[in-house]
């Protein structure tokens, strides 16, 4: 990579970030060269990728911590529009988040990818993994439209290749294809949005308008700004899996190798959040409040729909993927609120909402990464993605189970883990709606709070199901389990993520103080002035009297009570005897009688059934003579996303219909073709006259 000529020896955050990206490209190259020694390639490449990710984390933490903005111009790209890189606190924040999860996942991958040895060549996996990471880093660092889109698409393409890594399976191909198409159409929309912005921006030369700096200086007429925003939001929403553009997500994320799923769900989606914040708060800057309302409403919709669909899944990774839809929704609630508060000029509240959104971004990255890593370990151990074929794994793989449980608690927004903190902040932001001058918003936003509460409770239900069915009870599968515990690198990767979950949950004030500079830059107010005014232990957004939370004390409190009770009871412990299950005296209990994922979700399916496309088939083969006693009973359940039929199928149908009609143009007869030529001339002649 080529830097600007003024070489100073002083190394700043952006140089470190650039070094990290260059390193990833080198590692990709290295992996290609090490084609014939796969084992070495895996260890070395993922180790180096982990180092590179760590560099990015350092760069990001530094950039946010110092609150400075650095720029460099790379001498590649178009000569008149070289690639601009800029590391400001917002970029730094996302760099940290992406880097951190990449670090955990890279460590995890050292162990995970070894599972493919002997089955298939992993070279392409390693190469595209590195490119994928590099793409994500570049997206947040890009400071002109061209570089942004190049990075954006590199990220999309690399992840596409990762999704079709196991390309013999039809479902993988289908999912990858769908993913790529949605991503690309979204990218074109983003491109057009930049086109609008660049049209109003003035810079040196013909191409000067494409730099973000030029856009920051520009003034946009509100109608054009709206066009730009809607286009960009469409594009980013497609990437983030916002309802109703989410359909690709639960298809594509599960079929990728699990380390890749972790990154895709954990951080790739966040680049879309980054894009939305960048475009609205940084580039357009002045916007009407209803933009925020659009974001907020779609966020709420995604949150609720995401979790409901997740509940219906029995594919472990698909379930997790739907939860990404949900969490992106929660993040968007924060971002949307921040936009609303900003446009009504209430910077402090906007800061709270924005921080809530960003905090959830960070949290979701960590716990979703953790969960996918855990799922990867499970699938690795059982060769099974269907939860109905799992169960009792906690006995075989205690590490994975415990760490996975941490992820489950975090994502279910339960204290003292991290998911709770950000949802709590979001609740606080939602409850500030009375300060808004718009009566409609005043009224509707608390409804949003109720929906968010519903989401949280459903998520908890869903993860009871996910954890319970996968790890608890007896083995449900038909073949014998040969489940084995995950190897050390995998455990290490998950452990680090789990500890991060706890850290983020217990010590939110540190992180909020650290990232406060972003809020200050974009909405003009700091949250930390009020949020951590009572010391690091107390999180008090807006004011001490409004609300407060202390993760440390919750954690310590529970631990103290538990240990006290435990000690107290074990002064004179009663004996513990292992006995067969009682089950109200039922004797012939077997593993097929357990509740499984489908039955667990049945009550909720009954209640929210109208949202799904449910097809239930019960097939009873009666016993000869005794109608009441079935000999065999088959139950088949198929749940589809309604949006498939409402949006996607019609689009595909219309496309093929148009295509058929267009085909009629070409009937094979040369006279007809000549006639076209003839008519074209005549029409054009009439047109020019």
């Amino acid at each position, binding site marked *: 990579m080529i830097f600007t000529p003024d070489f100073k020896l002083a190394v700043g955050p952006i140089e470190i970030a650039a070094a990290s990206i260059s390193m990833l490209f080198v590692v990709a190259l290295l992996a290609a060269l090490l084609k014939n020694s796969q084992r070495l390639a895996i260890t070395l490449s993922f180790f180096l990728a982990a180092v590179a990710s760590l560099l990015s984390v350092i760069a990001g933490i530094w950039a946010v911590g110092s609150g400075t903005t650095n720029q460099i111009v790379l001498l590649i790209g178009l000569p008149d529009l070289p690639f601009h890189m800029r590391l400001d606190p917002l970029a730094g924040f996302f760099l940290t988040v992406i880097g951190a999860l990449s670090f955990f996942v890279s460590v995890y991958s050292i162990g995970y990818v070894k599972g493919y040895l002997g089955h298939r060549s992993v070279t392409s996996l390693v190469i595209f993994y590195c490119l994928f990471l590099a793409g994500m880093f570049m997206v947040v660092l890009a400071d002109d439209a061209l570089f942004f889109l190049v990075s954006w698409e590199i990220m999309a393409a690399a992840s596409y290749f990762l999704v079709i890594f196991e390309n013999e399976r039809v479902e993988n191909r289908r999912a990858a294809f769908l993913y790529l198409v949605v991503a690309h159409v979204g990218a074109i929309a983003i491109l057009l949005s930049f086109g609008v912005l660049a049209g109003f921006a003035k810079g040196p030369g013909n191409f000067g308008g494409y730099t973000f700096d030029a856009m920051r200086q520009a003034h946009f007429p509100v109608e054009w700004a709206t066009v730009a925003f809607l286009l960009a939001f469409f594009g980013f929403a497609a990437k983030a899996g916002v309802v109703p553009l989410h359909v690709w997500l639960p298809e594509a994320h599960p079929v990728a190798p699990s380390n890749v799923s972790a990154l895709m769900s954990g951080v790739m989606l966040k680049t879309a959040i980054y894009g939305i914040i960048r475009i609205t708060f940084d580039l357009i800057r002045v916007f009407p409040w209803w933009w925020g309302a659009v974001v907020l409403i779609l966020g709420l919709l995604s949150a609720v729909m995401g979790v409901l669909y997740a509940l219906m899944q029995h594919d472990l990774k698909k379930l997790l993927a739907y939860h990404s839809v949900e969490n992106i929704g929660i993040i968007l609630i924060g971002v949307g609120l921040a936009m609303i508060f900003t446009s009504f000029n209430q910077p402090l509240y906007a800061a709270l909402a924005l921080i809530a959104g960003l905090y959830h971004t960070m949290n979701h990255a960590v716990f979703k990464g953790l969960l996918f890593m855990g799922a990867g370990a499970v699938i690795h151990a059982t060769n099974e993605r269907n939860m109905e074929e799992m169960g009792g794994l906690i006995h075989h793989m205690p590490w994975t189970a415990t760490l996975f449980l941490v992820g489950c608690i975090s994502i279910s927004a339960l204290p003292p883990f991290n998911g709770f903190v950000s949802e709590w902040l979001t609740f606080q932001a939602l409850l500030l709606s009375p300060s808004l001058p718009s009566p409609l918003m005043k009224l509707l936003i608390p409804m949003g709070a109720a929906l968010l509460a519903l989401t949280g409770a459903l998520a908890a239900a869903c993860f009871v199901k996910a954890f319970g069915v996968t790890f608890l009870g007896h083995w449900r599968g038909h073949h014998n389990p040969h489940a084995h515990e995950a190897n050390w690198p995998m455990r290490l990767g998950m452990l680090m993520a789990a500890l991060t979950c706890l850290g983020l949950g217990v010590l939110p004030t540190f992180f909020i103080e650290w990232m406060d500079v972003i809020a200050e830059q974009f909405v003009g107010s700091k949250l930390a002035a009020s949020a951590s005014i009572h010391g690091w232990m107390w999180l008090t957004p807006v004011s001490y009297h409004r609300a407060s939370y202390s993760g440390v004390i919750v954690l310590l409190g529970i631990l103290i009570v538990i240990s006290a009770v435990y000690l107290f009871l074990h002064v004179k412990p009663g004996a513990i005897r292992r006995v067969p299950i009682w089950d109200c005296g039922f004797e012939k209990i077997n593993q097929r009688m357990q509740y499984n994922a489908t039955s667990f979700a049945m009550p909720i399916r009954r209640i929210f059934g109208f949202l799904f496309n449910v097809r239930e088939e019960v097939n009873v083969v009666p016993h000869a003579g005794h109608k009441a006693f079935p000999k065999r009973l088959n139950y088949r359940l198929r749940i589809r996303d309604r949006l498939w039929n409402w949006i996607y199928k019609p689009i595909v149908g219309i496309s093929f219909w148009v295509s058929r009609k267009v085909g*009629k143009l070409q*009937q094979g*007869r040369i*006279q007809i073709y*000549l006639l076209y030529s003839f008519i074209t001339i005549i029409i054009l*002649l009439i047109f020019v006259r």
Partner: protein
Amino acid sequence: MFKFYMPVNVASHIISFLAALVLLTAFGMLVQKRIYGLIRLFTWQGLFLSLNTAFVGYVANKHHLYISALLTLSLKVILLPYILHILIQRLKIRKEVETIVNVPMTMLIGIALVILSYHLTAPIRELSNLTTRSTLAVALATVMLGLLMMITRKHAVTEIMGFLAMENGLFFAATSATYGMPLVVEFGVAFDLLMAAFIFGIFFFQINTAFDSLSVEQMARLKEDD
């Protein structure tokens, strides 16, 4: 050098007359059903074209037009009809060819095209001060009629004939609008035409072998419609 100056209006009358003959042959080709008849008409058209070119060259005192007249004569009156005759005999082509649209209809469309050509070239006519300016409409009409003929016929040979008729129209346009293009261009065009003639000759054989006839109706296998 001695030169007999003809009154301008007489000259333009003669040119117009020749133009009318070209147009007439074009119409004749449009309705002619027999292949030999078509070739004969094409030969006549070439002859009129050649005469016209030579005459314009004479009237306007442009000697290079004699050369292009000669070119036209040799190529379109002698060589191409000869090649076509040979091909038809070799390939034992049926003498009748059916049209897609019936003759009166074709005629009507043809007349409409002439009117359209006249209408389109009207502003150009105003600009020009050449004797030949009024023949531009005829040239365009000939091109259009050639195209129409290609559209309404189902036979490879008639398609080629239509194509050649269009080429005639273009030649006519070149002479009538501008007293001819520069010679290098005229030669180049003639060379291309010659090459095209060889190619369609080869094609007739290929098509005949592959499809057992020269009707283009069978050549509709490559298509999108299903």
